[in-house]
């Protein structure tokens, strides 16, 4: 109970710190501008003539690919660079609480950015009769994808003091997670090793496969477990790395 309170206290502090700097606003503005432009220009929202969020949600993994590492690269790298890293652990909180607190703050921040896209929901409702179940699932999928990428960024951020390196490494890992289920990549795997199970395993690691199901209005326990697993693993990895850095 106390650990929860500690985590929540840190989460609130971190979340407030996001909004204390103009970076948060710039991030949100860029996210909203890009997601809006992609929806209407590349996603062909009007020519599709369909009351659904598909042309809006389809870009989210690609937007998160760059924006989430940008938002999360400072999670630990900044603490390490400015020397507040050790200070953090002198506070009466455990490393797990610190990791969770920082992660939750970042995730909530991304959630707030996502919530600010609701005018598109209003637009779709105004124009037609959308399926609200599918829309809710789509938002859930987008939020989980953001969390997954943030957890990975948290891990890469713990690896280095340099935020740029953290950014690049997390972009590469997230890109791999996106592309693992992409047909050109799976075809390449098939050419290299013609085993179907390998392709299936690779696709199973892809964020897209799991996000796609949610985007279609299908909540599958396997998809939820996938997102949870990647997050748990990445945050656990963050803990392992931080521990090794502290003892080093």
């Amino acid at each position, binding site marked *: 109970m106390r650990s929860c309170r500690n985590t929540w206290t840190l989460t609130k502090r971190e979340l407030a710190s996001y*909004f204390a700097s*103009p970076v*948060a*606003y710039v991030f*949100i*503005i860029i996210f*909203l*501008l890009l997601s*809006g*432009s992609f*929806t*209407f220009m590349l996603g*062909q*929202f*009007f*020519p*599709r*003539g*369909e*009351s*659904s969020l*598909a042309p809006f949600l389809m870009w989210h993994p690609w937007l998160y690919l760059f924006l989430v590492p940008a938002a999360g690269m400072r999670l630990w790298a900044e603490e390490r660079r400015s020397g507040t890293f050790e200070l953090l652990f002198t506070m009466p909180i455990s*490393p797990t609480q610190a990791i969770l607190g920082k992660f939750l703050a970042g995730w909530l921040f991304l959630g707030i950015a996502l919530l*600010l*896209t609701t*005018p*598109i929901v209003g*637009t779709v409702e*105004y*124009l*037609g*009769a*959308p*399926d*609200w*179940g*599918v829309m*809710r*699932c789509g938002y859930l999928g987008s939020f989980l994808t953001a969390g997954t990428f943030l957890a990975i960024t948290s891990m890469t951020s713990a690896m280095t003091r340099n935020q740029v390196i953290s950014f690049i490494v997390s972009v590469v890992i997230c890109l791999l997670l996106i592309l693992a289920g992409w047909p050109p990549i799976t075809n390449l795997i098939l050419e290299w090793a013609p085993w179907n199970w390998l392709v299936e395993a690779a696709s*199973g690691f892809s964020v897209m496969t799991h996000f796609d199901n949610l985007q*279609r*209005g*299908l*909540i*599958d*326990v*396997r998809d939820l*477990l*996938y997102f949870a*697993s990647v997050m*748990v*693993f990445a945050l*656990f*990895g963050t*803990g*392992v790395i931080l*521990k090794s850095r502290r003892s080093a």
Partner: protein
Amino acid sequence: MKNKNNALSTYLFSTMGLVVMAALLVALNLIVGMTSLRVDCTEENLHTLSKGTRDILAKVDSQITVNFYYSRDLAELSMDIKNYARRVEDLLKEYEHYGKGMVVVRKYNPTPDSDAEDAARVDNIEPMNANGLPFYFGIAVKCLDETQTINNLSPSREDMLEYDITRAIYRVFHTDKPRVGIISTLPVMGSGQQNPMMAMQGQGQTPPWLVAQIMEQDYEVEELPKDIETIGSEISILLLIHPKDLPEKTLYAIDQYLLRGGRILGFLDPMSFAEQMAQPPQMMGMRPPTGPSDLGPLLPAWGVAFEKEGDEPGVIADTQYMLQSPGQPGQPEQVFPTVLSLGRDAVDKDDISVSQLDDIWYVNGGAFTFQGETGLTRTKLLLSSDKAGFVEKFQAMNLDPASGRRLLDSLKTDETQHVLGLRLEGTFATAFPAGAPGEDAAAKPADDEKKDAPAADTGLKKSEQNGIVVLFGDADMLANDFAFVGVGGGMGRQPLFYQPRNDNANLLMNLLEWLAGDNNLISLRSRGIKKRPFERIDKMLADANGKLRAALDEVVEEQKAANERLQKLDEKKQPGQNQSWYLSPEQREERANLKKKVEAFEKRRKELSKEYRHDVDSLEKRLMVLNIWAMPALVAAAGLALAFAKRRRMAHK
């Protein structure tokens, strides 16, 4: 204790711990991967295959490959097709999911001269033409050597997609032709031996009806004698076409066939026009109408009866659905109140066998009422409009416009939709509770008595297995003259070929196919898929279109009038000197004014065409700007406001 915790933490948060954690998570994913716990959040349960499909997939014991061909790279594809292709892929994913490894979906993108195009050709997928380029959009279901193809997928048939795919899967496993037994008074299987009446008239042998010829492509069709005593289970479907005056023992055989889980498709008739026309002419060349086919005690046992006019089954006349054709110039249009042309409004939209049919002709047919409680599931497949009434068969015996007009004038309609086609499913009770009907000793050879004696004892009193009866109150709808139209051949000669006049043959084939399927296939219904267009934009476009048309009509009328005046003015021109044309100055001025007017109208017409999408375009622009810029602007404003507030607080301090 603290040391122990520290030690555990040291082990846990190590590279080894990370590897163990990864292994644990992968194992957990693999274990959970074997389950299929999921929630379909869509309004129409789009991702939930119906129980019938799931049961069929559960029985699949060899690998099935579903090849989905879709030329996705074709630039000309409409959004409708693109969206639909995505939904097809979604549904195929569900087949893969419920197939539990036995169903593998492969996607192909056939482009000209590609391997995928070769594969499509091998699978008999026919390309459509998209601006001169081949567009492939179909599904091939393969199992061992068997292939079933669904060509030309179309969004208009989306509610049938699950049925089509499941049927294809079912068919790759069940390759035998089902057997259809026909009992009919009409020469459905051709005249000659079968129809002594026509032979007596010296009309020689005529070929089977076209519907029978079509049936023979997919079924083993066998004509059963009208005095048949037992109908075996080798008959998959019993097809009754105007089964008039059947002996009791045949009715008993039909009854017992149904109780053994048989499937009956009946086209009954209060008066058969085809039979009437086959009669020899009587007084004044008239052919009197013939009697009804009402299956004796069977209909009451099934809780169904013909609606009557007088003492006999009435012929339905429908002022809304009646067949009409334009008359001679200056004459009123020709009407045939007893020939119904039934469109989508008349059919059950949830029923797979009829929901896609656009035009069913119903010729001098009757209507049914349901009677009593039978415990059967009753479905109305085909309905008249609520502006229909009944006439006696003598009133309907002449199918000519004059009779039609007379009939229409005297017709009394009620505000009820009458049942023209129906389906009964469930546990039927026998129509012969006292057992097999007694034998006519004179008509029966003595040695048959032995056979019949045990039959009376072992006769079923109620269904062993669920039976199905589909009934229509018209048999003429299947006759060549009403279901097909001859093409070519010239006057007095046989047509070169026939083509369907309407959907009557499709109705028969759909029903046979549906009845021949297994129970799971039969249980499938149309999926109520809701299209979700931008209704507001569609309405705006429709309104704009209406306004544009009205405005255009006005402009075109005025333009036409101005042109006519201009032409008349030109006719008044006088040849002057030098062969030039002479107009008075007033005429010249009027002409110039009219020309200006015509040009102005032309300009206005172009402007109106541009204005057509104006409102929609401006709405789209407003929404786009609102979505892209409004929220970022608000966030920026909020950020700046907070920054100012903070600065002021700092300044105060």
